[in-house]
């Protein structure tokens, strides 16, 4: 079984089923990209891992533990951590306090305040400022830093470059490559094909709550995958 194993998952919100019989796995150290149009269910997939949806069927395992019936906070303790869509930085906490939220997982490793500040030096300068004082790019860096503080085996990111200028996309791509180089796996939902190609090993394409196909990220531009991106 893979480190993160999603099998035959159906989930949604309230009575609405969004994901239908979806299976996806990510190994330790592996990087997987998820593509798909608005409303395809990409965020729903990631939110399901972190206990924020209603699971109707199927199972989610992290590090061999079935988590879909456990309290939401357990996922991060078991080694997946999350940078959500919209960043969700707490405006009333300082930059450093936001980072330290992940210490609740009790996971030790190479990622600590210093390592995160080395990755994103601007956060060191802003450490004592409230989260509300940051720009969009800084908020995203903080969201990634916060997730790294949990020392995950697989870092999960939802549209990290959304709303950011191209130069910041490059900065984040570099940062994610460093994360990979440290041995941490990645599951990233992203619209920028360039980022997916640079950072991930393979990609999948979602439409209407299902995975419709995928392949090696290096071959993303290949003719055979063109129909997938029309979905």
């Amino acid at each position, binding site marked *: 079984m893979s480190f993160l194993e999603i099998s035959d998952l159906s989930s949604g919100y309230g009575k609405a089923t969004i994901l239908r019989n979806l299976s996806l796995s990510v190994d330790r150290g592996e990087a997987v990209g998820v593509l798909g149009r608005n409303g395809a269910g990409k965020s729903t997939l990631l939110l399901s891992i972190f206990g*924020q949806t209603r699971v109707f069927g199927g199972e989610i395992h992290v590090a061999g533990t079935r988590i879909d019936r456990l309290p939401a906070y357990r996922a991060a303790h078991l080694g997946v951590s999350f940078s959500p869509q919209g960043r969700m930085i707490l405006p009333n906490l300082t930059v450093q306090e936001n980072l330290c939220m992940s210490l609740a997982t009790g996971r030790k490793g190479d990622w600590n305040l210093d390592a995160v500040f080395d990755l994103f030096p601007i956060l060191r300068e802003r450490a004592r400022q409230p989260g509300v004082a940051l720009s969009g790019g800084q908020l995203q860096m903080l969201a990634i830093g916060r997730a790294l503080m949990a020392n995950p085996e697989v870092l999960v990111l939802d549209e990290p470059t959304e709303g950011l200028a191209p130069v910041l996309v490059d900065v984040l791509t570099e940062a994610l490559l460093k994360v990979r180089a440290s041995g941490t796996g990645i599951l990233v939902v992203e619209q920028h094909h360039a980022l997916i190609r640079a950072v991930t090993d393979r990609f999948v394409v979602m439409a209407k709550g299902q995975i419709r196909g995928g392949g090696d990220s290096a071959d993303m531009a290949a003719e055979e995958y063109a129909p997938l991106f029309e979905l």
Partner: protein
Amino acid sequence: MIPTLILNALAVSSLYIMMASGLALIFGLRRVMNFGHGAIYMVGAYLGYTIASGMNFWAALILVPLIMSVFGVLLELLVLRPLERRQQIEVALITFGIGIVIAQIVIRIYGGTPLSVSAPPLLASSVKIFGADYPVYRLFITVIGLCSVVALAVWLNATRTGMFVRAVSHAPDVSSMMGINADRLSLLISTLSTAFAGLAGVLVGPYLSIDPGMDVAMIITCMIVVVIGGTGSIWGAIFAALIFGFVQTFGTVYLHEISVLLPYLMLIGILVWRPQGLNFGGGAE
């Protein structure tokens, strides 16, 4: 006259602060208004009476908060946690019902006549402040109130657990995704909250009286304070408790005819002005 009134207002505000900050903390974490809080305070006061008469006041001051913290554990494990997914109003009504039952049990045991506790010898004297004699015991209440506010502020702002409490109060879903276990924090907060209510109960004995209506009077005050402060806002609640103490104390003297109405007028006035309450920054900030 005025310095005395200010000191009285501070003493009574201190009691309200000890009560309302606990309520606001629970509300911040669980989004539940604990209407049983007044009954906890009442049990604290009567237990304080028993321990103070059997042993002494100082023993009561230490033992009662400890005993009442057990009520906090029960509140969390038997009420808040199992009913987590229920509607706020349902849980609030259940705490209301539990409060009534507890108060009735207390009245069964102790009877309906008001009781009084005398201040411990060490604090029974008075000091001259601005030329007037002032009871040391009331200053003692203010000091304890001040210490609890400072301790709470340090705990919330300078410790990791306090930071987690602020995080969960502000964004429970994000906090849970980041791995923060709100249940564990809630257990701690419930315990603190009932311990503080017990402390307020012991302190009130030698100051005001211990009587069967004290729980209702206190819970009404706390509701007004918490709503004025902005539900769930700790600093809002503390500030509102201070305002309430002053309005009540000065109102009784200078606006005697309408003094019982003053808290409600204040509530209406502030909510018309700021529907969200004073609410400094929101959450347990």
